[in-house]
């Protein structure tokens, strides 16, 4: 669970009655945050570096 997420909010479960599906509000794990940031930085680098041959 990410540090800025309150446990009660992340653990809230929505119930879809007619499909009988439960869904946790959930959070974004830290390791995924790191992936998002790393890819974002790489994207900017690659676009600038390889915009032209």
């Amino acid at each position, binding site marked *: 669970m990410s540090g800025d997420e309150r446990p009660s909010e992340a653990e809230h*479960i*929505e119930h*879809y*009655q*007619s*499909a*009988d*599906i*439960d*869904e*946790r*509000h*959930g*959070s*974004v*794990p830290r390791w*995924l945050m790191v*992936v*998002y940031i790393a*890819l974002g930085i*790489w*994207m900017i680098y*690659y*676009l600038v570096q*390889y*915009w*032209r*041959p």
Partner: protein
Amino acid sequence: MSAIPLSNEREELVDKEVVLHFLLSAAFWLVFAPTIGVILSIKFNYFGFLGSVSWLTWGRLRPVHVMGVIFGAFTTAIFGLTYYMVPHLCGVRMYKENWSRVIFWLWNLGLTAGLVSLVLGQNLGIEAGEFPVWDDILIEIVFILITIQIIVTIVRRKEKKLYVTLWYLTAAFVWTVFNYAFGHFILPFSMPGVNNAAMHGLYIHYVVGLWITPAGLAVIYYFLPLSAQAPLYSHKLSLIGFWSLAFFYPFVGTHHYIYSPIPYWTQTIAIVASMMLIIPVWTVIQNFYGTFVGHWQRLQESYTAKFLIIGAFYYLIGCFQGSTEALRGMQTITHFTDFVIAHSHLTVFGTFILWVTAGMYYVIPRLSGRELYSKSLAQWHWWLTVAGFSLMASTLVMQGLMQGTMLEQGADFVNSMVAMKPYWFTRTIAGVTMDVGAVLGMWNFLQTVLQGEPIATPALEPRWT
């Protein structure tokens, strides 16, 4: 707002006959289209195999395989599962249910006519958009009608919130209504030359990324929590996965044309977008496996769970391969090799065909009111699929890298082809293994409907699904 149906009334929201008809016809296409693939793979080993009859030649059968898998096997199953999932998620019956029966016949007629036309040599010449125009009108009408049914059913829903499956399904259908028209009515008749190639990259990746992917994700998001008997791990991750897919996927098409005359900067954007697809893929994978944590015993009990989880594994591998092979350095080795074929099979078959198969394991026993006909057949289906497909995927990856490296090092092209012979033979063996598994699985579905043991009430939940 009227009351939402309780559990024992849930299946009454669905037109069972329509869903079962769609899923059983999908079962036929799930055997037919891969079988054509096996025939094609034999041609790699024996070049003269079935080569004396024009309509059984490589050029005629290859599009039958591709169109048959995408639109025959996958899409027919998606239509059936859509008619199951949408009423359940909305708490109301499908809008204009009587349309569905007409759509069933229109769709299968359109598919059959299109595939026969391909065999007879009528081909529009757009990869993954090869049915002739007169047939495309039929297919387009079907997509439009189902899209209207979905949207109006959602508008009339009793459930307050929209579950993630409905986002993906609605988006997939709306995108495809436009993309199918673009690929079949505009692209073949305009934009000559290199612009046509660039736009073809757009079309074919819209088929993969804005039809197959979101429709397949709709299926796993629906059946995963049900088969795990656990809440979906994270609504927040669903949001990130959906919007990052919608944002990045439209830009990836040009990665088929790296080092081509298409402007360099557009190739760069396609490469970046391809790599950024790691975001939605890893996000949904975290969501899927997070849902299963603490519930792994369901893999022993549910074939729906088994097919979903192994499909998610192939999804992770296939998509990472797809992202990285877009990089210029990887393209120099992998382009025009079977590495690319490994990617398309890992995603389309290994992931999405397996996910709709999982959906069929869940839905067919419930709607027919019968237990799965044979656990043993299901077990064979599972193991032959996993064994055959793992062998095929790893073989294609290895031979692709090997041939690419040989050519990179200056080997003669013919010599590189000769070196591929053992791999092509292995691929045929793997394909036959998968096909036998598919025949057993589909036979199991048919027998479930025809002579499965009635589900004992009041349990109502069929075993092994």
